[in-house]
């Protein structure tokens, strides 16, 4: 074996490792789904409290969560049918992302229930709790995946949450676009990157 063959082998190994690691990009669809929901849910909820819209917040909550969880199940099933998809979730990075998201969403659910009932967090400030939880979650995803778009989004969501804390009356109108776009945009970027990569590999006729 000569240096050229050794170099080619090492390059091939690196390419396969990269391809496996980056398959995590395909798993960004929950960010797109929940980002879209939050983008509309929070502002509508806020308008209800400002008496601009009829106050059907419970129905809205059930509808938004219903669409979200149904989407998770349906889109999840559809995506898992695609070959090569699940592997991203099984990588070390994929597992870290799942842990980060589970931790922050779990903490936010707990605070949303216990906060107002114990009087520690006033009811109207609950959306701000979610704002901070999302900011930390997106930051964690950015660090785990080494993706700048998530880090920038985390900063935007964090800033929006600070602003929302100061203007409680309008917190949904502030948090909706910040949290919604803060998840939607990096999610779409990740998925488009995954798609571009797949197309480039198909076009290059890459064969192992």
């Amino acid at each position, binding site marked *: 074996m*000569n240096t050229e063959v*050794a170099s080619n082998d*090492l390059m091939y190994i690196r390419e*396969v490792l990269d391809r496996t690691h980056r398959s995590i990009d395909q798993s960004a669809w929950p960010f797109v789904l929940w980002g879209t929901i939050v983008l509309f849910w929070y502002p509508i909820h806020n308008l209800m409290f400002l008496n601009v819209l009829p106050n059907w917040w419970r129905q809205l909550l059930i509808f938004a969560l219903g669409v979200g969880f149904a989407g998770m199940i349906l889109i999840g099933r559809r995506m898992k049918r695609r*070959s*090569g998809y*699940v592997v991203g979730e*099984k990588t070390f990075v994929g597992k870290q992302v799942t842990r980060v998201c589970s931790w922050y969403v779990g903490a936010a659910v707990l605070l949303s229930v216990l906060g107002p009932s114990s009087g520690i967090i006033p009811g109207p400030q609950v959306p701000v709790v979610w704002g901070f939880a999302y900011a930390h979650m997106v930051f964690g995803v950015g660090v785990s995946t080494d993706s700048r778009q998530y880090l920038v989004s985390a900063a935007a969501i964090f800033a929006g949450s600070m602003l929302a804390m100061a203007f409680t009356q309008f917190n949904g109108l502030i948090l909706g676009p910040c949290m919604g776009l803060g998840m939607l945009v990096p999610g779409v970027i990740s998925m488009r990157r995954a798609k571009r990569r797949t197309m480039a590999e198909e076009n290059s006729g890459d064969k192992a």
Partner: protein
Amino acid sequence: MVTKPEFDPAFLSQARLGIISVLITVEEATFPELKELLKLTQGNLGAHLRWLEEAGYVNVRKEFVGRKPRTIASLTESGRAAFKCHIATLEAILRNGER
């Protein structure tokens, strides 16, 4: 006298090298996942997996999801050790020049 490095025949095929590279990253991978990631044909992948299984580098198990059979491959400890050894050999070749 310079001794020639001994190459594990398992890694002389790029397909087998690819299989081991994927399995070193994930704990286990299904047959379709490997096929997609490595862009191999079904027959080719099956043959190389069998080769690695017989060498004791890969553990292949079959299970049923509903009525559909699913093949799952994972790396064994000796497969992991052999891969690390192969990488070290390749790096040594690049450091020392052509052998």
